[in-house]
């Protein structure tokens, strides 16, 4: 480390406390951190949406009329948009989960590969969302 760099590091005020401002503007979350927090957020979203999804499965299998209603309901744009967000949440949770399984096996734990696989997870889940959205509607 150069002398200037040492000086800059020394001037930072420590200890650093976590507060909303620090979390939003001062601490930059590294890419694998984004994959991690999105894994958690997408998981929570899917759990909260379960009741809604189960209700739709229930109605769609109950009768022909119920199926027709759900098909129409799923075509409304706010419903469509919400479903698309959930499709993304599922895809992200799926891709990030596979990445974690590899990390558990000690594969790709070095910084370079961890960053690369994080990019792949983010890109693949978005691409899958677009593909499934296009296929479903």
């Amino acid at each position, binding site marked *: 480390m150069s002398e200037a760099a040492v000086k800059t590091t020394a001037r930072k005020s420590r200890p650093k406390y976590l507060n909303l401002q620090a979390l939003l503007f001062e601490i930059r979350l590294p890419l694998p951190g984004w994959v991690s927090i999105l894994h958690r957020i997408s998981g*929570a979203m899917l759990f909260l949406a379960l009741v809604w999804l189960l209700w739709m499965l229930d109605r769609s299998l109950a009768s022909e009329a119920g*199926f027709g209603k759900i098909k129409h309901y799923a075509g409304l744009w706010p419903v469509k948009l919400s479903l698309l967000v959930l499709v993304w949440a599922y895809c992200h949770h799926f891709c990030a989960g596979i990445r974690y399984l590899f990390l558990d096996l000690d594969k790709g734990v070095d910084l370079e590969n961890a960053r690369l696989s994080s990019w792949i997870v983010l890109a693949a889940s978005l691409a899958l969302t677009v593909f*499934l959205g296009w*296929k*479903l509607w």
Partner: protein
Amino acid sequence: MTGRTVTGARYGLRDWLAQRITATIMAVYSVIAVVVFISNKNITYSVWRDLFAQGWMRVATLLFAASLAWHAWVGVRDILMDYVKPAGLRLALEVMVLLTIAAYVGWTIQILWR
């Protein structure tokens, strides 16, 4: 009994392993489900009903639901352990989550074998 709380983890490998095994089961089901949906051009009510009328589909879906129940429980419990510090509140929320998940599994069985 130092530092052990009733709302903490069970200090074992079991849930960690269950999280991964259930994830794998759901991943396999998801891939099969996507292939089935994409290969069916136009899904009408009869196609949809007949798909879920098949024994293997019902059992596979129940297996998926059971995996999801366990997986979601471990995941939601992890979130509660990280963000909800008062033990009483956390316990109450955990009980609510467990009851909700149990109800969902019951509902799923009702949907599949109506």
